[in-house]
Structure formats: structure tokens, C-alpha cells
């Protein structure tokens, strides 16, 4: 009975060390009820648990021996954790990074270290040991004292100092801290930099070199910023685009951005043509053609013929001679010699090379922007996690109008409901009959659409044959418009038919619906253009033997383009304005018609294809297209603001813009390039007009030039060699395509590898998650134990302190702490054994007697 005393004395001195404390009792028997209590309350009982039950219990309660097993506590049980555990959970680094400044600082410190390592600047010596990243950083949050944050800060400042100025600026810019914070960090890292810099400078050979470099870097940085600001100011339509984005969101904005991209492409195409072909020819006009100049009637703007025929607008105007500034035609009519001073400007060559070069530049830009767009929109694993992405990323912060915001609310809600319903639908199987019916409808609609396409094609072909059989003279301008009008009518009408048919079929996803509609319209447009190309190069060239067929083709394309513009206007007027009025007045509908992004973008692609097809025959066609696009921008914007609302369907803006730019590249640009290549390599140019009038094909101009170079002398002999081995030989083509394929293959493999790595990392993270849960449980149990033991110790202590100091005298001592502290519902029995309390409190003779 002498043991209790040391226990009481020990408590305040080594409170943690309860394992080694002597037992407060010497009875070998501890009540079974206490063990039940432990089993109930603690999630996992470790071997080194309370010694209260260690005593002699080995035999009495064998059930507790298997206590090493872990019970993983699910997240739902988090409420069961004690406050201390929760506090630790809340201060874990992974949870504080979104909230606390200290955690952000340490994260950015680590990043800076990584960045510096990559740059491999060697000055780590000056930085103390503490600056190196260590695990220590991670437990800083356990003690959220200001001191720790200060320390982290100074580490970060030190790291920042060792970066270059530009890198430091970049790093600071990207830190998710307040401006004041960033400024003070910058000030500190700048003021402290002075000393190490000097030291380094003294050591270096050229002390001023570093300073000079820094100044240069700073100046360049400033210049870059200035240029950027300038570019920003130049951004056309910034305000208009902002308004569109604010009212209709990103989806409709993507149409206007695409329009802007097309403008840039046309400018790119037009500039070299203006500089090297049109401008030069305009400066040295060829002798005027004999015959009266037709009067300007105004119809020319539609037909592109008449007065406009013999201008820089068309191929026929360009001369086939060399233009030579100093050469004044001799009075006797003789040509000036080829060897006169100054470089002869060979017009056919310039024409061929400029068009070829402009096409090449366009091709490079197009492929580059396509790959860029793919890189933006294609993310590895972007198909999974649609719910999370919808919730986290679907709000468009650009939207500034209340009405638009309400619409966006509605769209998101509908989309979420659809997603949830879809998830349930996928689980339920669909009946075979229903699926068969759907497939049948789908097949039928596709058949009908293809039939419509075929009908349109046949109509265009028949009409073009009719046009050839009944030739109209250039004077009857109106009749020339017949074929383009038919083409435009078909282009306008067929999409409406398609839309009507598409209402019959029911697609699972709205995105698929858009893709199908795009696909059908695209097939129609491409087939019609293909027929027209055949009509021009296959039939017209033969029919117009004695005339300038290139001019005719150029004019046809001009007409198509102008009429396309007019039909777009009509479509906007009737499809949007009139339809809105009807639906508002007659049908009493609240909703405005939706803006059909896909259809409008396809119109743009079609117009651009026409431009590319015609640029060889009418070098100023890109200029016409630019004017058309500018008008279109304002008209569409006005109509949109007045008549339309944003589409109800979710629209993956970046995906769709990738699709559109690929469509622009693949059928449109490639088709135009094939058409032009055929025209250059295979078709005989007309013999009465144009720069190639004496040659068999346009390509011969290049050949003739190379032959002339061969004769010219050894100085340029490498050029014919290049021509012989690189252009006429097919081997380089194979080589380049093989290289291209290899690059594509490599990229595919890299993406595959990344996918694999992502899978592995995911697995690792989920393993770590399990580890975390394990540790949390462990922590929880430790805290539980500590709490309980402290409680019991308090009980015992207070009991003991009320005892007469020598030994237990009163047998009826009873303490009950269950009501004050539910974690320790223990009874201290007179013999200082512990007993579990059952409610209500058992009636002991005297509850507390001291």
C-alpha cells in the first residue's frame, strides 16, 4: 500500500512518461469493465498502452492481445477526432498551402531552389546550411509562430538573391502574395544583394561585366514591357470583344476571335503580294490594251468584270517582261537590253515566287497555330473528371451583364443536371429495340443528308455545263452572276435542311451533335467547291481557248466571294432579325434565337477557301476578303447584340477552336494548295494575257530562269545544282516526310510515356493518402490515450491530495469524474481500483467523502 505516493509525486515532473510510472495499486485484479471501456473508446490500442490494464491482465482478458490491428477511419468519422488531432490535421502542409502565408512562402522557396538548381548557378557556398531544403521545412507549420515565418522568409529572400534579375522578377510576379508582401520581398532581396555581388565582382576578372549585363538585362526587360504595352494598345476591337465576352461568354467570343485570326492570315498573305507584285506592277504599268475602256456602271462591284478586268486586280494585267526602272523604251521601239545596269525585275518569276512564298508562310503559320492550339486544348487525361471540371471551371468571369449571368446560371444548372442524369442513365441498360430504332434513324438521316449533298453537286455540275454551252459575253454582267447565285443558294439552303433532319435524330452528347452538323456542312461545301474547280480547270480552260481564262476564274471567285457576303447578310437579316421579330411578336416566346457558332465559323472557312483558291488569279482577292471580314465583324456584332443569345449547350471553346483551325488547315488550305499546284504545274496558261503567256506551264518560268542562271556564270552555279538535286529529285521529299513521320511517332510515344507516369503518380498519391490516414489514426489514438491518462491521473491526483498524507484511511473514498469528463468515466474505488461508471451513477453509500 505504499506505492501510491511516488505516483502522486511523479505526476507533475514527468507528465509524459506515464509508461514507466509505478502502478497506483497493488491488487492483481483490475476490473474487466475497464477493458471493455478501452476497447470501446479507443480506435486502436497499441501494445504500449495504459499500464492500468497491463497489470496481470494477460490471463484475465485475452481479447485485448490482438490490438495491433488498425482500423482505418473513414473521412466521415473525422468528427470523432479530438480537437487536438483536428488541430494537427488542419495544420498539415497540404492543407495550409491554400491559406497561410508561411506555407506559400515555403512552397515558393522550394520552387526557387529548384529553379536555381536548374540554372546551375554555383553560389550555394555563401548560403548557410539552413537555406537548403530539408524536411524541417515541413514541420514549421506545427508551430505557427511568427518566428518560423520570419525564418522562412529570410530563406526565401536568400534564394531570391541568387537568381538573376529577370528570374527574380518572374518569380515574384507569380507568387500568390499581396503586393505589399511582394514589394518588401523585392526590397529585401535587392538591398541584401549588394554585398554578395560585390564580393563576387572582386573575385571575377571583370568587375563591371556583371553590372553591365544586369543593366542590359534591365534595359531589355524595360524595352520588352514597353513594346508589350504598345502592342496591347494596338489590339483592335479590344472594347468590342470585351463587350461580346461580357454579354455572351467565351463560346460566342471564339467566333469573333476566329474572325480576327483570319484577318491576320489575310494580311500575311496580302503584304508580300502588295510589295512584290501589285505595287511593282502598278508603278510600271504595261501598255494599255487596245480598244475602248468600258464605262464604270457599278455592276462591276458584283461581277468583278467590265472596268475592273484590266486592272492590277487580275492575273491578265501583269506583264511577262522584265521591269527595269532605268530602262526607257528606245524611240525605235527596240527593247532595252537585258544587261543594262540595275537588276532586272522579272515579273513572271516575282509572281510565281511571291505567291509560292506567301502560301508557304501561310502554311507555316497555320501549322504552327494549329499545333499551338492542340497543345492548349489537348491535355493528357482531360476526358476524366467531368463533374469536377464542370464545377470548378465552368463559370466565365468575363460575363458582366446580369442577364447573361442569369443565363449562365441556367446553363450550368442544366448541364449539371444532365451530367447527373447521364450518370444514372449509363448505369441502366437500354433496350435493344430502342437502340435499333436509334441506329435506323441515324442511318436514314445520314442517307438523306448525303442525298441532299449529291443533289446539290449534280445541280451545280448541270448548271455549270449549261453555262458553258450558252456562253455569255463579258458585257452582259448580270448573266454571269447566275452560277454563283445558284451555288450560294444551295450553300444557304442545305444547312437549314440538315438542321431540320438533325432534329429527328437524338444524339447522346451535344458536342457530338455539333460535330455531326459541322461534318455534314463541310462535306457539302467541299464537294461543291471541288466540282467548281473541275469546272474551271477542266472545262473552262478548253472553252476559253482564245480568251484569258485566268481572268475568268479570278472573276468567278470574286463573284462567289461577293455573293457569299451578300447571302451572309441576308441570312443574318432573315435568320436572326426577322426570326427574332416573328418569335417575339407572333409566337410570344421570351427566348431569342441562338447564335449558331459552328455554322458561322464554317461560313468563314468557306470564304477563306475561296480567297486561297483565287489568289493566283486575282492577287488582290485577300484585300477584298479583309474588307469583307471587317464588315462582317461589325454586322455580326450588331446582329448578335440585338437579336441573339448565347447557345444553351455547353461549348468547349478551346476544343472547338482547335477543331476549326484544323478544318481551316486540312480541307481548306490543303485543298486550295493542291488546286493551285495543279494549275501551276499542269495547266497551260492562256497565250494572250498574264505573265506566263509564252510558256507551257507556269512552272516553266522557274525552269527558264534556272537555265538562264546556268548560262550566267559560275558565281550562281549552286542554284541550278540546288534545283536539280532538291527540287527535281524526289528523294528529299521522301526524306522530309520520313522525318516528319518520325517526329510524329516520337511525340506519340512521349505522350504515352506521360500517361504512364501520370498513372504511376496517381497510384503513389493514393498510397500516400492511405499512409496519411494511417498516421492520422495513430495520432488520434495517441492523443486519446494521453487525454485519458491525464484525466485519470488528475482524478487520482486529486484523490490522493485529499487523502491524509500518509496512507489511505477512509475506506469509503469515492471519486466520480464521469460527469465532468466523459472521456474518463472512472470510479476510484476505496481500494484505488478503477471501475467503469454506468449511468445512472450507482448508489454508493457516500458519493464524495473527504
Amino acid at each position, binding site marked *: 500500500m505504499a506505492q501510491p505516493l511516488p505516483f502522486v509525486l511523479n505526476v507533475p515532473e514527468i507528465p509524459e512518461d506515464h509508461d514507466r510510472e509505478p502502478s497506483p495499486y497493488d491488487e492483481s485484479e483490475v476490473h474487466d469493465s475497464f477493458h471493455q471501456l478501452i476497447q470501446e473508446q479507443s480506435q486502436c490500442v497499441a501494445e504500449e498502452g495504459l499500464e492500468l490494464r497491463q497489470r496481470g491482465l494477460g490471463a484475465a482478458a485475452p481479447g485485448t492481445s490482438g490490438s495491433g490491428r488498425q482500423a482505418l477511419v*473513414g*473521412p466521415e468519422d473525422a468528427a470523432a477526432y479530438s480537437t487536438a488531432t483536428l488541430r494537427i490535421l*488542419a495544420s498539415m502542409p*497540404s*492543407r495550409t*498551402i*491554400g*491559406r*497561410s502565408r508561411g506555407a506559400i512562402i515555403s512552397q515558393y522557396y522550394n520552387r526557387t531552389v529548384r529553379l536555381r538548381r536548374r540554372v546551375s548557378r554555383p553560389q550555394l557556398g555563401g548560403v548557410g546550411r539552413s537555406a537548403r531544403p530539408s524536411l524541417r521545412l515541413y514541420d514549421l507549420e506545427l508551430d505557427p509562430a511568427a518566428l518560423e515565418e520570419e525564418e522562412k522568409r529570410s530563406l526565401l529572400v536568400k534564394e531570391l538573391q541568387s537568381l538573376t534579375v529577370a528570374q527574380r*522578377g518572374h518569380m515574384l*510576379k*507569380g*507568387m*500568390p502574395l*499581396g*503586393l*505589399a508582401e511582394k*514589394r518588401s520581398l*523585392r526590397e529585401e532581396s535587392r538591398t541584401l544583394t549588394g554585398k554578395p555581388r560585390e564580393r563576387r565582382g572582386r573575385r571575377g576578372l571583370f568587375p563591371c561585366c556583371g553590372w553591365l549585363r544586369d543593366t542590359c538585362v534591365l534595359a531589355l526587360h*524595360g524595352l520588352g514591357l514597353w513594346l508589350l*504595352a504598345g502592342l496591347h*494598345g494596338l489590339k483592335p476591337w479590344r*472594347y468590342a*470583344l470585351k463587350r461580346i465576352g461580357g454579354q455572351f461568354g*467565351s463560346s460566342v467570343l471564339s467566333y469573333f476571335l476566329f474572325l480576327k485570326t483570319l484577318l491576320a492570315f489575310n494580311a500575311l498573305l496580302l503584304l508580300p503580294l502588295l510589295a512584290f507584285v501589285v505595287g511593282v506592277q502598278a508603278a510600271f504599268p504595261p501598255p494599255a490594251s487596245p480598244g475602248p475602256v468600258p464605262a464604270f456602271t457599278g455592276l462591276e462591284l458584283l461581277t468583278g468584270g467590265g472596268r475592273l478586268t484590266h486592272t492590277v486586280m487580275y492575273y491578265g494585267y501583269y506583264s511577262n517582261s522584265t521591269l527595269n526602272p532605268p530602262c526607257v523604251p528606245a524611240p525605235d521601239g527596240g527593247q532595252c537590253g537585258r544587261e543594262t545596269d540595275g537588276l532586272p525585275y522579272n515579273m513572271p518569276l516575282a509572281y510565281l515566287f511571291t505567291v509560292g512564298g506567301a502560301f508557304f508562310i501561310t502554311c507555316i503559320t497555320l501549322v504552327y497555330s494549329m499545333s499551338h492550339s492542340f497543345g*492548349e486544348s489537348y*491535355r493528357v*487525361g*482531360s476526358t*476524366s*473528371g*467531368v*463533374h*469536377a*471540371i464542370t*464545377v*470548378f*471551371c*465552368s*463559370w466565365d*468571369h468575363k*460575363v*458582366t*451583364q446580369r442577364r*447573361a*449571368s442569369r443565363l449562365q*446560371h441556367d446553363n450550368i*444548372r442544366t448541364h*449539371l*443536371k444532365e451530367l*447527373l442524369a447521364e*450518370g444514372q442513365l449509363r448505369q441502366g441498360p437500354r433496350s435493344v429495340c430502342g437502340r435499333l430504332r436509334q441506329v435506323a434513324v441515324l442511318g436514314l438521316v445520314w442517307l438523306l443528308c448525303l442525298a441532299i449533298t449529291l443533289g446539290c453537286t449534280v445541280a451545280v455540275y448541270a448548271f455549270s455545263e449549261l453555262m458553258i454551252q450558252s456562253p455569255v459575253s463579258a458585257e452582259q454582267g448580270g448573266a454571269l452572276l447566275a452560277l454563283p447565285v445558284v451555288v450560294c443558294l444551295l450553300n444557304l439552303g442545305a444547312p437549314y435542311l440538315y438542321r431540320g433532319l438533325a432534329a429527328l435524330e437524338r444524339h447522346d452528347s451535344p458536342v457530338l451533335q455539333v460535330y455531326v452538323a459541322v461534318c455534314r456542312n463541310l462535306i457539302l461545301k467541299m464537294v461543291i467547291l471541288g466540282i467548281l474547280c473541275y469546272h474551271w480547270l477542266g472545262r473552262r480552260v478548253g472553252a476559253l481557248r482564245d480568251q484569258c481564262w485566268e481572268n475568268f476564274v479570278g472573276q468567278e471567285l470574286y463573284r462567289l466571294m461577293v455573293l457569299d457576303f451578300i447571302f451572309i447578310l441576308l441570312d443574318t437579316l432573315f435568320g436572326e432579325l426577322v426570326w427574332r421579330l416573328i418569335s417575339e411578336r407572333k409566337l410570344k416566346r421570351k427566348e431569342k434565337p441562338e447564335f449558331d457558332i459552328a455554322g458561322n465559323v464554317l461560313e468563314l472557312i468557306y470564304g477563306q477557301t475561296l480567297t486561297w483558291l483565287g489568289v493566283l488569279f486575282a492577287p488582290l482577292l485577300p484585300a477584298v476578303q479583309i474588307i469583307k471580314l471587317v464588315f462582317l465583324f461589325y454586322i455580326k456584332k450588331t446582329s448578335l447584340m440585338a437579336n441573339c443569345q448565347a447557345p444553351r449547350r455547353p461549348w*468547349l471553346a*478551346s476544343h472547338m477552336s482547335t477543331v476549326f483551325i484544323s478544318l481551316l488547315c486540312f480541307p481548306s488550305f490543303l485543298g486550295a494548295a493542291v488546286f493551285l499546284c495543279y494549275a501551276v504545274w499542269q495547266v497551260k496558261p492562256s497565250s494572250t494575257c498574264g505573265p506566263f503567256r509564252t510558256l507551257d506551264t507556269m512552272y516553266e518560268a522557274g525552269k527558264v530562269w534556272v537555265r538562264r542562271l546556268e548560262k550566267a556564270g559560275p558565281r550562281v552555279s549552286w542554284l541550278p545544282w540546288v534545283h536539280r538535286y532538291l527540287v527535281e529529285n524526289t528523294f528529299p521529299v521522301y526524306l522530309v516526310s520520313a522525318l516528319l513521320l518520325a517526329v510524329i511517332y516520337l511525340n506519340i510515344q512521349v505522350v504515352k510515356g506521360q500517361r504512364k507516369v501520370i498513372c504511376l503518380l*496517381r497510384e503513389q*498519391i493514393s498510397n500516400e*493518402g*492511405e499512409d*496519411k*490516414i494511417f498516421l492520422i489514426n495513430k495520432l488520434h489514438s495517441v492523443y486519446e490515450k494521453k487525454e485519458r491518462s491525464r484525466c485519470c491521473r488528475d482524478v487520482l491526483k486529486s484523490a490522493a491530495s485529499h487523502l491524509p498524507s500518509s496512507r489511505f484511511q477512509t475506506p469509503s473514498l469515492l471519486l466520480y469524474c464521469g460527469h465532468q469528463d466523459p472521456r474518463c468515466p472512472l470510479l476510484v474505488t476505496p481500494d484505488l481500483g478503477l471501475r467503469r461508471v454506468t449511468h445512472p451513477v450507482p448508489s454508493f453509500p457516500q458519493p464524495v467523502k473527504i
Partner: protein
Amino acid sequence: MGGSGSRLSKELLAEYQDLTFLTKQEILLANCWLLLHPLHPSGSSRASPSTVPGTQAHRRFCELLPQEHRSTEESLHTRVSLEQILSLPELKANPFKERICRVFSTSPARDSLSFEDFLDLLSVFSDTATPDLKSHYAFRIFDFDDDGTLNREDLSQLVNCLTGPGEDTQLSASEMKQLIDNILEESDIDRDGTINLSEFQHVISRSPDFASSFKIVL
């Protein structure tokens, strides 16, 4: 720093340009806006420069301002109350406007924004800000209880913000539960029942549209 007149001094402007993703025009615009608002305590959107097109116009608008007692130094430390910020046309229709202001506010009560806070806001929502920065602040905006993780309550508040303010527009309880279950299933990689910053950024990085939609055009 300092310098009288309603325009920012050159050094300060350069510093702001260095520390934020904003261009000179945008900073000046923001400054104008701030100078205007204390003069018009009602915060009417008519007076706000952002409804007037063209940056040149704004700057001239600024220069026309009476310079009475208001130097730049002073204006930088003026705090604009939450209501005035919320009445800004760019934020008016945004369901997250209160959260945005709270996240960017540096005042102790989180109820007002200084000019620099406002610049921070604009910088994060600007065109050129890094996706990392954007997703970090998006996380903080969505973390309604400021505890550093997105738990179920945060998510349900977020969904309610997205679907609209009214009672009738909200999802039903079962739908909400299913949606949140799905979200956690998809994005809670370590299965601790909440979404932390890295998990959030992992989800965001898979969405190509995020950077273009997390943007406020001034």
C-alpha cells in the same frame, strides 16, 4: 514614391508593372477608377471609367479630376469599401464577387480594398497571369470557410453559387449529394474527404478552358 497630382509617379508605376501582370494602361485605368470612387461615394457605374471605351479617354478623364486634397500618396492608402467594389460593372454580375473581394482584401476585417489589393485582383484575373497563380486564387475563392481545403460544405456552397441564388434554382439535396460524391470521387486523390490545393490544381490543369474563363477584362 509620392509626387503630387492625380497620376502615379513613374517609379511606382514601374514597380507595379514589375510586380503584377498588368500593363501600364491597365494600372492607370485602375488608378483612375480608385480616384473616382471616393469622389462618388454612391459608386455609380456611370462614373466608373470602365464603361467608357478607349484607354486614352480614361487618362484624360483622370487629368480632368479636381486635385483638391487628393495626392497619389493619399489615394494609395485609401480603402474602398466592399459595396463600392461590388458595384463595379465588371464584378456586378459575378456570383463570387464577395469571395473575390474577401480573398484579396488585406485589411484586418476583410471588408475593404486598397489600391494595391485591387491591382492584385486585376493582376490575377489578367490575360497574362500564369495558370498556377490563377488556380491558386481560384482555390482560395472557392474555399468559403477559409480553412485551406475544399470540404463538402465548400463544394455545396460553390455549386449553389454556380446554379443561381434563388431557392428554386438550386439542386435538390439528393442531386447535390450525388454531385459532391462524384466530384470527390474524381478529384480527391488521397481520399481524405477534402480537396486540397494540389488536387484542385490537378483538376484545373486538365481543363484547357480555365485560363480563358478565369479572366476579368478591365
